[in-house]
């Protein structure tokens, strides 16, 4: 199984992004997704910057994938996505389609792609259609369980690679509204780019202080970190080819090394965290199922 670093979902200052990927270049990760995958307003890095980062990471031996927006509303959003798709093609990289409009554009140009988690693949028939449209890899939606995955992969589809988020906050919802701007009583179009002040989003606590959600602009994430460490044997047995780790401000290098050790059969030494794995077991996503149990 190959180790993947998903797209950076938070909005970091330009130099911090460069520094982060400098560090990533030296880490034992096989695939790196680059580009803006949350909000069309974010612009610390221009497309040319992402392309340059892509070249650097490719030179370091990484497979690079260009991610795209999950919500395409306006003509300018469409243009932005078209530019990213063209850049991916030019660089000989896959693009990650997170929206059916992107799928259409990719299918039209005959460009191979990764079918992102927001495309809602819950059955083998849907996956087959995306394959026919040009998907080479697909990503399991975060809310999908082992049983769902097993069902999809029960129809042998050897040419397709399967990617699963194994570590990171679960992206739970997207809106046209921005909840970070709302926090500061700002209009979305004049948001002052407040996301820059929150390198891992804004914690949302219940009124009794329980960490519940995370605001990340138009995206809402879980508060807990989805974590499938002990499920790796099950993932492997099902035929999963790619394991995604979602970038975090501090922990990413340590997490990447820990998963690499696991893949090599060594003790992981995984750092402690506020973890959840309920989605995998068809339980509430925020729950933690203690024993990896047999799923029929």
């Amino acid at each position, binding site marked *: 199984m190959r180790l993947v670093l998903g797209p950076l979902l938070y909005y970091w200052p330009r130099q911090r992004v460069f520094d982060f990927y400098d560090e990533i270049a030296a880490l034992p990760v096989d695939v790196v997704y680059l580009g803006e995958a949350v909000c069309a307003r974010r612009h610390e890095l221009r497309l040319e910057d992402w392309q340059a980062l892509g070249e650097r990471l490719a030179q370091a031996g990484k497979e690079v994938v260009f991610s795209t927006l999950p919500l*395409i*509303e*306006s003509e300018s959003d469409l243009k932005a996505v078209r530019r990213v798709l063209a850049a991916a093609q030019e660089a000989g990289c896959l693009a990650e389609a997170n929206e059916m409009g992107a799928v259409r554009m990719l299918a039209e140009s005959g460009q191979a792609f990764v079918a992102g988690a927001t495309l*809602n693949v*819950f059955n083998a028939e849907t996956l087959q259609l995306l394959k026919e449209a040009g998907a080479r890899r697909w990503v399991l939606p975060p809310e999908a369980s082992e049983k769902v995955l097993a069902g999809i992969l029960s129809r042998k589809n050897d040419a397709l690679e399967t990617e699963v988020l194994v570590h990171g906050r679960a992206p*739970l919802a997207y*809106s046209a509204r921005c909840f970070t701007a709302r926090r500061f009583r700002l209009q979305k179009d004049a948001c002052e780019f407040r996301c820059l002040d929150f390198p891992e989003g*804004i914690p949302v606590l219940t009124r*009794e202080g329980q960490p519940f959600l995370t*605001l990340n602009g138009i995206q809402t994430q879980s508060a807990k970190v989805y974590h499938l460490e002990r499920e790796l044997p099950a993932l492997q047995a099902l035929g999963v080819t790619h394991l995604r780790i979602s970038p975090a401000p501090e922990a990413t290098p340590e997490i990447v090394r820990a998963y690499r050790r696991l893949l090599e059969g060594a003790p992981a030494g995984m750092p402690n965290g506020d973890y959840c794995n309920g989605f995998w077991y068809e339980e509430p996503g925020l729950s933690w199922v203690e024993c990896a149990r047999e799923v029929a």
Partner: protein
Amino acid sequence: MELVCPAGGLPALKTAVDSGADCVYTGFRDATNARNFAGLNFDEASLKEGLAYAHRYGVKVFLALNTFPQTHHWRQWTAAVDKAAELGVDAVILADLGLMAYARRVHPQLRLHLSVQGSATNYEAINFYYERFGIQRAVLPRVLSLPQVEQVVKNTPVEIEVFGFGGLCVMVEGRCALSAYATGISPNCHGACSPGSAVRYVETPQGLETRLNGVLIDRFSRTERAGYPTICKGRYAVGGETYYAIEEPTSLNTLELLPALLRMGVAAIKIEGRQRSPAYVGQVTRVWRAAIDEAKRNPEHFKLRQEWMTQLNKVSEGAQATLGAYNRPWK
């Protein structure tokens, strides 16, 4: 422009027909649709009766099959498509690619609508469904502004249906797993959000608490009206401030945009609320029927009537109604 009204059961269907709906939309009594609530929806016999009633008055009946089937449930969803075709519904409203391909292949005469759960917010996405499956209508998520709706209409041969009235999802439909995170039950897979079985109302010295699978969604003082604990409508503590962090409990009312929607060629207005009572359906249908007729008759001088707004406000969820994303006060 068609008026598409909700029917959570036979009485609501008949009320919608009697009150001036052009179309009613329905669902089977199971997880194949996104309003899978106890006591709601149709079995075969009641749908047959509803179809006969509606068709007698020239009203169309749509059937929502707009959840995402999982491989091990696949046959239940395809059987629902087969049943819909056999009973003669006028269209099925689908979200899943695989199910759409099945419907196209097995029932080529069956009219396909893309559900709001399909999250298609731009013409490229809608045209993808059109080219691959021949969809004839798409329901837009409640996140687009008016100019964005117009941009979609201009660039697709597919009829566009928009939400006009009812409960408001702040998240893009089909892209929300908040309920799954707290309860394990989601709109995408189970057809339900914040299910009643997970809801608890608890009286405490601090006020009435509403909990969803144990998670405190809100707490109400004696002077406040306690709302249903939908996650996006709860009050939370963010950076030391407690407020509606995601969305205030409001509902959508776009009556005043009617002439604009008509002008830009929107094919249908959808009323939300299959979970609401026949009285709600009747009230809302009558007002919108009158408004659409007047807007068609006299688009240049269409004026909102206070009586319409009064009647609609009476049945709104939450105290206030908004124009939602169509005009974007938050933008």
